């Protein structure tokens, strides 16, 4: 192994250490990339590379997708659309055992089609679903576990910031990634519902706080006095879903039907969300301004990371480390399956102490060399990478979704440990779905 490859390896390890020690991720990536490039080609060209890649890497129409989808997600989060979804799903599932838990999962899945982050899903549904589930006789652990678990759908079901970032790093179509994620995302939601059903049947003590609990959905709405006709009742269920339906149709339908590029879908979706919020009188100009302000901050922090990722991947290429490792992997006789298992295990392991975005930024530029070497379908590779990375949202010590639930709930009687324990069944479900999508690549190709 040559000198340059050692430098490359040192930079990766250094990155992991610095990020863990609390340095800003973008700063750590830039620092070590600058160092690595300087060691290979000298400081003057390294500096020029850093400056020009920071500018050129973001001067593209494609990047418009980031602020627009962030804006749409934030607008939807400040309206009561999530609440309507939860209510409607609860009504539909009220006769099912564990139905309220499933309602949370399904409401989250649909909500995820309007937002791109799991943090938004986790905080919105902590406020909506946890009190209601507890009121209806579910254990606190189960309630917070369902919310934390199903929040991961936020970044799996498109639009999703993680897919945008993956698309940028891997230089593949974000629209195609979005469409490829629909079926695995739906599959994940189904797996979560099945998990709840199994828990309710075999571990009722985990789900229900007392023997009488049946886990049906709110019964309040049954007592409307007179008995409305079936059509009226159907309309009552469907009506609150119309605004969300419009948003999902505009975004996913627009991209899938080829009417919109992802950037355009984000723009139209964000505007539609604002109009819906205004019509429902849930948005004031002040609220809109604050949401746009927040959009700017999220955009700046993500694009700053992407700038850093750009120079990092150039550093990797210059170091020649991927080629060295490729040779090594061929010599070791580790085939495609061996590589995949190692790679996914590494992502899950890193996920226990790093956040999803940094894992993608540090590992993917590097793993892509192997994926292309093995002639893999990069879209499928993206889908499994993101599922694997998202598993880390639920694992201790640093499961971000669990911490968001804890922070939003802000109750002394609910410890972070309760949330980790409660979301453990969903962690298992995620591993199963990951294995399935990894074993059957065509799952992510169904709609393409």
């Amino acid at each position, binding site marked *: 192994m040559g000198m340059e490859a050692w430098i490359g390896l040192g930079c990766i390890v250094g990155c992991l250490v610095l*990020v*863990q*020690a*609390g*340095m*800003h*991720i*973008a*700063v750590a990536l*830039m*620092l070590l990339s*600058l160092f690595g490039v300087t060691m290979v080609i000298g400081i003057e060209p390294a*500096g*020029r590379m*850093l*400056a*020009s890649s*920071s*500018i050129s890497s*973001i*001067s*593209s*129409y494609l*990047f*418009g997708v*980031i*602020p*627009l989808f962030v*804006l749409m997600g934030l607008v939807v989060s400040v309206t009561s659309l999530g609440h309507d979804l939860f209510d409607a799903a609860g009504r539909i599932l009220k006769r099912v055992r564990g139905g309220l838990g499933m309602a949370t999962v399904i409401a989250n899945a649909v909500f995820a089609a309007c937002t791109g982050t799991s943090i938004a899903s986790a905080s919105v549904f902590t406020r909506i679903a946890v009190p209601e589930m507890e009121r209806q006789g579910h254990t606190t652990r189960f309630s917070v576990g369902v919310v934390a678990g199903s929040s991961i759908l936020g970044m799996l079901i498109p639009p999703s910031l993680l897919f945008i970032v993956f698309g940028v790093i891997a230089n593949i179509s974000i629209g195609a990634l979005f469409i490829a994620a629909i079926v695995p995302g739906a599959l994940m939601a189904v797996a979560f519902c099945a998990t709840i059903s199994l828990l309710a049947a075999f571990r009722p003590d985990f789900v229900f706080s007392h023997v009488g609990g049946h886990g049906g959905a709110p019964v309040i709405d049954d007592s409307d006095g007179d008995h409305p006709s079936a059509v009226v009742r159907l309309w009552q269920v469907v009506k609150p879903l119309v605004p969300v339906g419009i948003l999902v149709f505009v975004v996913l339908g627009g991209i899938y039907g080829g*009417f*919109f590029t992802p*950037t*355009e879908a*984000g*723009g*139209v979706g*964000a*505007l539609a969300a604002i109009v819906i919020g205004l019509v429902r009188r849930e948005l004031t100009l002040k609220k809109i*301004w604050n949401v*746009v*302000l927040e*959009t*700017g*901050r*999220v*955009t*700046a*922090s*993500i*694009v*700053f*990371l992407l700038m850093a990722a750009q120079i990092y991947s150039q550093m990797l290429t210059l170091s020649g480390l991927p080629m060295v490792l490729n040779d090594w992997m061929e010599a070791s006789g580790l085939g495609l399956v061996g590589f995949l298992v190692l790679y996914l295990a590494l992502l899950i392991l890193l996920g226990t*102490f*790093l*956040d999803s*975005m*940094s894992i993608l930024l540090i590992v993917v530029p590097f793993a892509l060399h192997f994926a292309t070497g093995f002639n893999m379908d990069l879209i499928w590779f993206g889908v499994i990478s993101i599922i694997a990375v998202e598993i880390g949202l639920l694992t201790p*010590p*640093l499961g971000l979704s669990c911490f968001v639930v804890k922070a939003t709930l802000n109750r002394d009687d609910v410890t972070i440990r309760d949330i980790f324990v409660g979301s453990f069944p969903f962690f298992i479900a995620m591993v199963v779905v990951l294995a399935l999508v990894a074993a059957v690549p065509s799952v992510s190709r169904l709609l393409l």
Partner: protein
Amino acid sequence: MALADFWRRPVGWLHFITMALNLVATAWIVVLLIMINLDVFSLNVVGRPIVGVKEAVGVSIAGIVFLQLAETLRSGRHIRSDMFLNRMKMTRPRIGQALEAVYHLTGGVLMAFIVWFAIPIATTAYQSSYYVGTPGVFTLPTWPVLSVVVLGAAMTMLQFLVLAASSACRAFGYWPDTEDAR
């Protein structure tokens, strides 16, 4: 406190400038939203896109991001995993603050690098009238947005250095009033 007074004024200016840049960036996002929707509307109703929207959107992102960078840093929103650092700040406050100072200083130096090497890029773009787009159809000079990049990076550098200085003060046992010192 003489030191605090000496410190407060430049920090106040920096704060003022970053807030102003932040306002511009926020308004710019609204413009971006309107531009894209007009473009989509025009494409689907009139049958042709609005000339120049694609180029303008591409250029906008760099502008928005660099205008927002300093304020995002100030409000502590740049992504980092702070579990170790927070624990350090609780148990060994001085070491925690010293680490924080080093991290912010590093950020400041990197930003200085970007500013230093971005200035020639911006001046060359101005002197040679670089543009994006298709000549004869629509072109947009790149120097304005490159100047915004230099300005934003410079402000971010200053913000990093201010944060580094205030953490360093704390590491040495001098705790300035938290809000003002940022």
